[in-house]
């Protein structure tokens, strides 16, 4: 049996975190949760997730800041970061081809409101 991969879901909307967590758990992923960037960074260090689903606009430390910290830290830069934003076109920090190869650090993004099936697809693709 495949080892369950750990995904960290980060958003300051607890209901969104729960919805995403339930969907990903139903797809046999292990889930950790955080509700702001500071807490997320601590969980990343403590739990070493394989992928983080990261909201952009959050208190204390926003998603862009955390993404930059992850991707510029040699120890964590291989962690897959999927940004979660209501303004997909405004994501300035993804190199993903959906956005015409805009230069930056995140591995992928998904727009809000979230299509949970699409999120699962993106997560699986990025963990392959």
């Amino acid at each position, binding site marked *: 049996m495949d080892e369950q991969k750990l995904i960290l879901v980060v958003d300051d909307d607890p209901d969104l*975190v729960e919805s995403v967590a339930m969907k990903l758990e139903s797809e046999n992923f292990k889930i950790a949760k955080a509700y702001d960037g500071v*807490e997320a960074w601590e969980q990343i260090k403590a739990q070493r997730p394989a992928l983080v689903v990261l909201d952009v606009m959050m*208190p204390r430390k926003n998603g862009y800041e955390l993404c930059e910290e992850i991707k510029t830290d040699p120890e964590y830069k291989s962690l897959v970061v999927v940004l979660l934003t209501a303004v997909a076109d405004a994501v300035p920090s993804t190199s993903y081809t959906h956005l015409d190869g805009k230069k930056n650090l995140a591995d992928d993004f998904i727009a809000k409101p979230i299509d949970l099936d699409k999120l699962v697809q993106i997560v699986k693709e990025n963990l392959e």
Partner: protein
Amino acid sequence: MSAVSTEPMARVKAGGIKLSERQLLVRGAFPIAGPDLTAVLIGLAAEQRINMAFLSRTSTADLDRLVCCVPDRDQERLATLVGSRPDLDRRLTLGPLVGVLSVFPHHRRIQLFGLLLSALGQAGIALYGSMSSISTISFVVAYDDLGRAVGAVEGHLQLPANAAPLKPQFRVEQSPIAKPEGQEAGEQRSAHDGLPPKTET
């Protein structure tokens, strides 16, 4: 009558506390037999992109009771909207200013609700509404009581070491929805009526 326990309550594990920005409380009671005025109000607010941090609706045999909260800054816009509908206007009360305190996640633990209710009651904090969602248990309290309410519930919760109450730091701005020609405000909306995307959350 059984004796009331004086044992201190054990702290219950929770992930965090979330606070709303300052809200205007909106309350109403509508006859079940008439038009669905709750839906009308929600439709009007949605058309003007007025967010609701809290919404509860309780139906009895003859009345629909509504409690909702809209941002304080939208108070004037909401009053204008409500004023345009006399059937709503005479059945709604606007105010006082309130805040929403949410504790998460509840993990379907009813004892957490009881604990929070008891903590707020012991602190003498009046509640205007309560509800649960998929992850949170929320209480509406007077805005001036919000800090005291946080203190009251924090004393009963075991929160992560790095947890700080999540306070609103972002203001959500959305463009008004253009109303399709011939459609009455707040009525006959569907999930597929071409709403423009949100600007950010």
